[in-house]
């Protein structure tokens, strides 16, 4: 190359599709876990009414938006961040960072310690959102994968591991 060139670096379609599916699944699972799991219920109870939070990648997503309405019902609100007012934004600095997180090569605390995340909103609510994400990942993932995704695998009751997990999975898929 001997002359000047201007490059538009393009996109990563595979990563975008994979992350879109994963975020949809996790978003739906948060909605389901908020109805099944007491700990998740308690975390949402601590959040103000009509509170929404998002998880996504800078600058153009993909995103996952979850919110609590005035009747304390938790809902997955989709992936279009421009349609919703978001109180708390958890953003990874690039889509690759989000991809590394959702392919379980880096856990949330490791990604945070490597300065890959930025939070726009209240810190206590951000901590609560991360705790909710951790619980949901334990529900969704088999133990070896979940161990890579979170800091410490929790010691849960047998009911929580079996019945509650099954309920979360059914509710996630059916959306009930």
């Amino acid at each position, binding site marked *: 190359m001997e002359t000047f060139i*201007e490059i538009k670096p393009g996109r990563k379609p595979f990563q975008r599709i994979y992350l879109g599916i994963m975020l949809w699944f996790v978003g739906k699972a948060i909605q389901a876990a908020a109805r099944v799991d007491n700990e998740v219920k308690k975390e949402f109870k601590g959040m103000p009414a009509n509170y929404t939070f998002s998880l996504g990648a800078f600058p153009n997503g993909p995103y996952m938006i979850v919110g609590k309405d005035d009747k304390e019902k938790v809902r997955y609100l989709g992936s279009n961040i421009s349609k919703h007012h978001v109180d708390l934004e958890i953003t990874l600095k690039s889509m690759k960072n989000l991809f590394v997180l959702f392919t379980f090569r880096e856990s949330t605390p490791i990604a945070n310690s490597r300065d890959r995340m930025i939070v726009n909103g209240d810190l206590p609510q951000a901590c609560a959102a991360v705790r909710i994400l951790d619980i949901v990942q334990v529900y969704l993932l088999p133990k070896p994968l979940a161990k890579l995704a979170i800091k410490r695998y929790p010691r849960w009751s047998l009911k929580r591991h079996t019945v509650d997990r099954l309920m979360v999975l059914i509710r996630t898929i059916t959306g009930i």
Partner: protein
Amino acid sequence: MNTGNFTFLCRTKTGFGMNALEHLPFDLSCMGSQKPLVLLDNNAQLKGCAKPLIRAFKESGMTLGLCPPIDGGTDPNIDLKTLKNFYGIYIDKGFDSIIALGTGKVADMAKALNIAVTLGPDTLKATGEKTQITQPLTPFIYIPTGMGTGMETDKIARLNGKTFNSPFLAPDLAIIDPEILIQDTSDTIINAGLTCLATCCEAHVLSDNPPARAYCATGIGLIIKNFLPLVQSILTPEVTPDKKTTKRYQTNLAQASVITGIILANCKGLLSIQLGRHLAKDSTATPGQAMTILLPAVLDLITANKSDLGNLILPLSGLDEFSSVPISQRPALAIQKIRSLLNKLYQICLGTIPRTLSDTGVDRESIDALVQSLSSDPPPPGTDIKTINLKQAKTILTHALDGQPLNQAYLN
């Protein structure tokens, strides 16, 4: 002299480690930039360093400009022509930040371009003290592809024999990502490594600047752990460690060179650096080799408080050796550690690296001429360089000639 007062300025944010490049679009966006122009050298171009950079910008929505690679030659006319060409590209295409991909000349060219595009090209024509850079320049990112000598993150830019000095010339961000690092030649690594070692050691002992000393200790620790193993792995292929370990050595040394630049920007008038640069013109040694050869004599002669010199053992050898050596023996041991490193390097390089001044082709008779040339070669205008005390310089050169300790009492 310790006055109890100091200032320390580090304008450069460092991003280090795996996937550190992925943060670059975000950081640029935070600086208000959407269209960076990339300057790179021939080596970086040939070894494909632009590919990981372009990959990091995917999905960012930004546009990158990739300049033709910069030639490594020293022809000032070509440098000016290249700079004019880059200036035209930057202005015509509407770029708003500069990325220097590579070490040495690329960083200088990027700094000069930054002055031209922010303050106008006429600023580069002004000479000496007239060149005042008193306002922030456009965002400037430095991405090393190997180990630099530290001038890349320093607040100095050199172009065409002129020196520009301003805190605004230091990069806003330095990113060290193992993915983009390439294997340099052993000569480049040795020169850069020894320059960094001499800078960090002298500033650690002689600077009364606590933050700078903390940086120095980190820099020395990184060099001691990674420099000799990397040189050995290049020169003796049969003991080459795995790729991951080599990458670790390279990234750590690149970090040491970034730290060295920050130290150079905060510690004025380091004697071994000034003398070493001067000596390299009149001998077979590279500037880095000359600096490290002179370093033991400089430390021995200049250090007023010998406990500062003794404390150098801590970053050089670690806590265990520091605590096991009596306080009175620490200064001598610190100096011996530096000499031992040079001797070990001599052994690894099969005798091609000088250990003393006489190994560089300087003899006792030529020392007076060297000292005289110091007085007739004043420091370039615009730099922080202090005038060298000629008597001190002669003592240092005499003792560096055969590596003889200044204070023989140490040996008793």
